[in-house]
């Protein structure tokens, strides 16, 4: 049945740029340092101080713009956005109003399959601009003070605004995942939603199918993970569609709602008395940034391989399946890891098995939490299995141990005495022993019951505590039985 209504979603994303120092001063941008450790008169915005632009922020913003197919403005300037809030020490934020760094780009996202063909939707990007972050307020229950940490003041951000081109919560999350992947790949930002280096506010409205005008839109803030974004959008979409269905769409008012993860729904934000009049005007302390085309071209050349290109290359070079490629090339961390392991001489398929199987089993969130096994170690382990020094099952044990304690596979095998027994004499000894204790089974075999080999193999593995090289053991067992 055709959908009577259409959901319209737009996003406003803030990503912290991957620079060493802040946007307007030389303080460190490192996350998690002691409060007010990374401050100076400039980012504390003491009287008399002036901002000096960090050249790397411009480079990264342009890189992001190029990777997102944007037009780069050759002349761009900064503007002051004036408002009062305790996390903003100078009561204005230096941002970009009418001449942002980038305009007019897009990301293509997959919206599903139809007749075996991948469906692509192009999501437009309206603009990308540079701005500075504010400090952090820590609200204390039942106390008369609020604590302030200015480490984050002046950390460089890009604000990315999309066109309202997404048509479902899934598309919104797909967009974000793709954007995150691109920004990570280009090393523009490490995009950690859990650390606040990627933040996203959403705008959602509904309209009658075929209608050109947009319905009233609602903004939702305080979303801290992709899951929350999807849930919040789904809830709000449902709320709005219900109202439309009953002809009560005028009950939808333009407002900002806050996602309350505890309650699992959005709540109205306490509205400030006046709509913000930010009184934007050109920042007189910063001369405009004027780029020549050579500089822009050079920055474009610096862009590392983008996710799309990497996926296509993985399919081609490594002969992996689409599924394998999508996951391995999905994040830079995994992609690099995979290529490192292959680089140590491991067959791509084998490397893929281990990464997709074992690694992701123990670390579902490997991209963010870090990969616990060195690529060299995994490669060594795989080689050892191939050489028959340990069995595949033992290998999995060793892998888990490596992840837990970080030791090399050599050391673990030696310490735990896990080496496979491949030595023929030793294996023969074990097998003779097993055969002598299982004379009935031997009789069975001699009478034509070949299946009993399985049972005897089991006994051999048990007797050797799993350490007998299965291939060697099997061959010797068969020989001995036939004899």
């Amino acid at each position, binding site marked *: 049945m055709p959908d009577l209504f259409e959901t319209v979603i737009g996003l406003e994303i803030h990503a912290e740029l991957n620079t060493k120092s802040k946007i307007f001063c030389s303080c460190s941008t490192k996350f998690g340092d002691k409060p007010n450790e990374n401050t100076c*008169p400039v980012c*504390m*915005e*003491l*009287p*008399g*101080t*002036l*901002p*000096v*632009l960090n050249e790397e922020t411009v480079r990264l913003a342009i890189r992001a713009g190029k990777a997102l197919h944007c037009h780069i403005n050759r002349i761009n300037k900064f503007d*002051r956005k*004036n408002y*009062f809030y*305790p996390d903003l*020490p*100078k*009561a*204005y934020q230096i941002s970009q109003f009418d001449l942002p760094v980038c305009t007019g780009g897009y990301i293509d996202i997959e919206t599903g399959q139809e007749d075996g063909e991948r469906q692509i939707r192009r999501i437009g990007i309206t603009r990308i601009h540079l701005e500075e972050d504010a400090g952090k307020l820590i609200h204390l229950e039942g106390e008369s003070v*609020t604590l302030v940490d200015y480490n984050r003041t002046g950390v460089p951000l890009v604000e990315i605004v999309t066109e309202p081109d997404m048509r479902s919560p899934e598309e919104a999350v797909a967009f974000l995942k793709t954007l995150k992947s691109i920004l990570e790949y280009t090393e523009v930002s490490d995009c950690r939603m859990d650390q606040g280096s990627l933040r996203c506010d959403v705008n959602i409205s509904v309209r009658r199918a075929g209608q050109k005008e947009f319905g009233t839109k609602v903004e939702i803030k305080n979303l801290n993970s992709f899951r929350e974004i999807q849930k919040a959008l789904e809830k709000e979409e449902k709320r709005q569609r219900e109202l439309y269905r009953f002809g009560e769409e005028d009950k939808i008012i333009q407002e900002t709602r806050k996602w309350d993860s505890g309650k699992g729904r959005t709540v109205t934000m306490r509205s400030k008395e006046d709509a913000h*009049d930010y*009184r934007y*005007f*050109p920042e*007189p*302390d*910063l*001369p405009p940034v004027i780029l020549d085309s050579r500089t822009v071209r050079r920055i474009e050349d610096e862009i590392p391989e983008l996710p799309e290109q990497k996926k296509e290359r993985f399919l081609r070079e490594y002969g992996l399946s689409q599924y394998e490629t999508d996951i391995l090339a999905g994040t830079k961390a995994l992609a690099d890891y995979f290529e490192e392991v292959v680089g140590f001489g491991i067959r791509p398929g084998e490397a893929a098995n281990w990464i997709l199987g074992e690694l992701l089993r123990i670390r579902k969130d490997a991209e963010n939490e870090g990969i616990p096994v060195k690529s060299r170690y995994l490669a060594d382990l795989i080689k050892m299995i191939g050489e028959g020094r340990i069995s595949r099952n033992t290998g999995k044990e060793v892998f888990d141990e490596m992840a837990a304690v970080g030791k090399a596979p050599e050391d673990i095998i030696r310490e735990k005495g896990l080496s496979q027994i491949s030595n023929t004499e030793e294996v023969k000894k074990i097998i003779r022993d097993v055969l002598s204790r299982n004379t009935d089974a031997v009789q069975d075999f001699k009478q034509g019951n070949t299946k009993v080999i399985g049972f005897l193999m089991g006994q051999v593995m048990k007797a050797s505590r799993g350490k007998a090289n299965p291939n060697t053991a099997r061959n010797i067992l068969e020989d001995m039985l036939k004899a």
Partner: protein
Amino acid sequence: MDTGRKDNAIKEAEKMTISDIQRGYRSKSFSVKEIVRKFLDRIGELDGTIGAFLTVCTDKALREAEELDERMGRGDDVGPLAGIPVAIKDNICTRGIKTTCASRILEDFIPPYDATAVKKLKDAGAILIGKTNMDEFAMGSSTETSAFQTTCNPWDTSRVPGGSSGGSAAAVAAGFVPLAVGSDTGGSIRQPSAFCGAVGLKPTYGSVSRYGLIAFASSLDQIGPITANVKDCALSFQILRGQDPRDPTSVAAGSETDTETDLMKDLEIGVRGLKIGLPKECFQQGLDPEIAESVQASARLYEKLGAKVGEVSLPVLESGLSVYYIISSAEASSNLARYDGIRYGYRSENFHDIDELMLHTRSEGFGREAKRRIMLGTYVLSSGYYDAYYKKAMLLRRKIRGIFREAFQEYDLLLLPTSPTLPFGIGEKRNDPLGMYLADIYTVTMNIAGIPALSLPCGFSRSGLPIGLQLAGNHFAEDKLFRAAFSLERELGISGRKPVIKGVEQYA
């Protein structure tokens, strides 16, 4: 050397130029400590009457003087301003020393860093004597809006010293220091210099770093020297200027000359062949006839000295004033938004929540003029009014720059009055804000165009009040300004004159 001769040598320290003092150090006629002591004593005796200083750094200055004497005794290289006492306007940050902008809202603010200008002076060996009084946040033309005290004009203590760098100009006129540093946003160095019979320079925008200058109007503010004569002014400017990586607006905007000229070299070559234009609009109504007469007389002197003097049209005065007040108020409203009692400075004791804290702190901490400018600036930037005022003012600013550019194609320098009035009485213009604004009419356009301008004493009124004239040049043409100013100063011969300060005046 007998004490009698030494006493003689520093008897009239207040009349010494920078060169005089340096000569005395070299010939060992006196020590740095003795000079500093002499100036501090004079301040102690007379500043109660004048009120030029908000803070006097007695102990620190004497300590530094002692150290400097030691180093000079050892033959160390001590810098081009070694042992020269200097006063600094209280909107320029001095590390560890209270910097208040003459405002209650910063009454106890102690900066953790030095302004670049201060650092340069210290590196050159200057001794910081104290911080001078000013109009609150540099907003004003009389130093009357200071939250702490009134400064009097040393030439007539019932009159204002001008503003906003009134304390600095008065300190030089009263012989408290040979060098004072001020700031000029719309005339705040030049007008008080004219009122106090001193030489004051507003440099080309961007030639002196603004890092550490507590901002009033970012695109107009400049730090500059105030001295008793032209040579001292040129020497001091040479120390203060220079590109600063901490100030992105410093020498960033299209410098016409890449190499910095040596200002002292050609100071005395005279004005033969120099083309000087008199803007005819400046000599129309509103100008005190004594000032007009004095400035015209100087124009005639320039002709006598070999300059080519002519008339030029500069239709920028009326609109220039509006452009100035729109832009400066807009920028000020934003620059002053950070003063809210949360992190430093005055904090209201009367509040229930943080919003009230900010509201009451600002309402109690700012004076009337500062509030007026903040309100005006907020108004012209607010949505609905931005296009009508701010945007138009920015476009007009371009036009004004173009008009000056054209004028400087025909002339090397412009000659005009600094102030339309003689120093007025304390309290006379307090309730006439618009009247006060109109007094800036000759000075604001140079800030708008970013060009350098200097005020030079050119005579006295019949009542004995100083009259100053203004010389303006193209961007980075300070060398021409100083050359012309030096010639006229030499010709006029009045630069040695000092006021007799009523009250306690002692000669040894």
